[in-house]
């Protein structure tokens, strides 16, 4: 039982190391728009509020806060901020 747990844990860690070392963001991922990333990421935890609830400056702060809380990547948070600032 203990051995199987260790094997599962090692396999999981190994997969993650493989993922990190062998893959850079695919073109499919980098081509995603801010609107798409906004729809995909924010709804994971909560409803999506209207972009017009905040000003451009406020969205910068709100998305920075979300980058920290929701572990968004830098590229995701930049694109989402740009989208919200254009759509508010």
């Amino acid at each position: 039982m203990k051995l199987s747990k260790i094997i599962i844990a090692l396999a999981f860690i190994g997969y993650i190391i493989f993922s990190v070392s062998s893959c850079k963001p695919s073109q499919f991922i980098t081509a995603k728009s801010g609107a798409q990333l906004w729809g995909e990421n924010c709804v994971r935890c909560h409803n999506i509020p209207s972009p017009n609830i905040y000003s451009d400056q406020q969205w910068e702060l709100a998305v920075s806060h979300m980058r920290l809380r929701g572990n968004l990547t830098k590229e995701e948070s930049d694109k989402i901020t740009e989208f919200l600032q254009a759509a508010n």
Partner: protein
Amino acid sequence: MKNKYIFLVAMFAVAGFVPLAVLAQDQSEVNKEIEKLKEENREQNKKINANKPGKSSFLFTGFSNLTYHQNLEDTDDSKFAHAGFSPITIWRPSERLMLETELHIEMEGGVHGGEAGDGHGGHGSENEAGHEGTTFIDLGYANMVYFLNDYMIITAGKFLTPIGTFNERFHPSWINPLPTSPLGMGHGSPLPVAELGIQIRGGLQTGISKLNYALYLSNGPVLEDGQGDPERAGSVVYSNFSDNNKNKALGGRLGWLPIHNSSLEIGISGQWAKNVGDEGSVYEKVGSQLVVGDISYLINSTSLKGVIRLTGQYSKLMVDDALYKSDSTDIAKGDSEFYTFDNTSTFYYGLISYRPSKSGKKFIRNIEFVYRYDFGQTPADSKWEFEDARSTFGLNYWIQARSAIKLAVSIGELSNIMYLQWALGF
């Protein structure tokens, strides 16, 4: 004839002088007007500059709620049990620096310590909110943040413990789809909520999948050895921010999102504290380990005309065995002077919610159906032994994206309670 010329010259002179004099007078008035306008312009610029935003920026946000509680087994036990206001401030003085704070200002009606509201859940533990009509103010977090690079963020201060996902992401009442927190989670509960220390974290894209991580060093938990409160002997307290020994706790979480649209996240997290007992006491070498697994999956379905959200978390807290002193009453009854127990606590929950957000009718779009099963068990044979399993059914109506009226019925082994909550994020 000569007089005629003189007259004509005089006439021309007068005719020329008068307009010149008038022009000179007009020019003077124009100059005065220009000066006046310049002065007004300077005043306007001063006013504009007074309100000109600097490089630093500030956001005031947060959430609030009011919860009504009806004990289904005791009709007399009905009350507005909890009111909370949790302002969040975010200040960003430069591109790389940020400060985030959250304050909890809460009033509890009592019954079960902090059972509703902003993650102040947790049967089986006493907390400061569990007294009748207590109002308290608590610093949820005060976190200084430095965005080091694209892949790493450094934080220092009091931060939400990155153990599992409920604590960090789902605790605000406008996000949590039910009025209560799962067993074991929330302020005053056996699992950590906020830690004082330093942390590094970040997220990175790896092919189509994503990874995120958090690693922190904190004061860690403190063992209640029974000297102060014999009824809590063997429990660990995470909300105690005074460090009782030199050892620091190491913790963290690793999250993996294997699907390109980030709909699935699997996480493992834990905290290890080598020493949780008071330095110099017989409990100094007692350690604790917390291991947590979490999963969340979001299905955005056109055929089901809505969104299905699945979340779950399993937590196991293990504290090294130790001998605790029996109280005099137990000794008088014939118990031995010291007792021990397997100091392991287990908490888990699974939640499913469905919101028909793609329905053609607005009223239907705003409805959400929720079900959660949660379980909590603290060590058998301890003085704070507790076990409960609950099924909670919820029906929410979303007034806006960040405001909901939530009706929930919780059927548990210990109590059956109906809740009505209005949660508002702002």
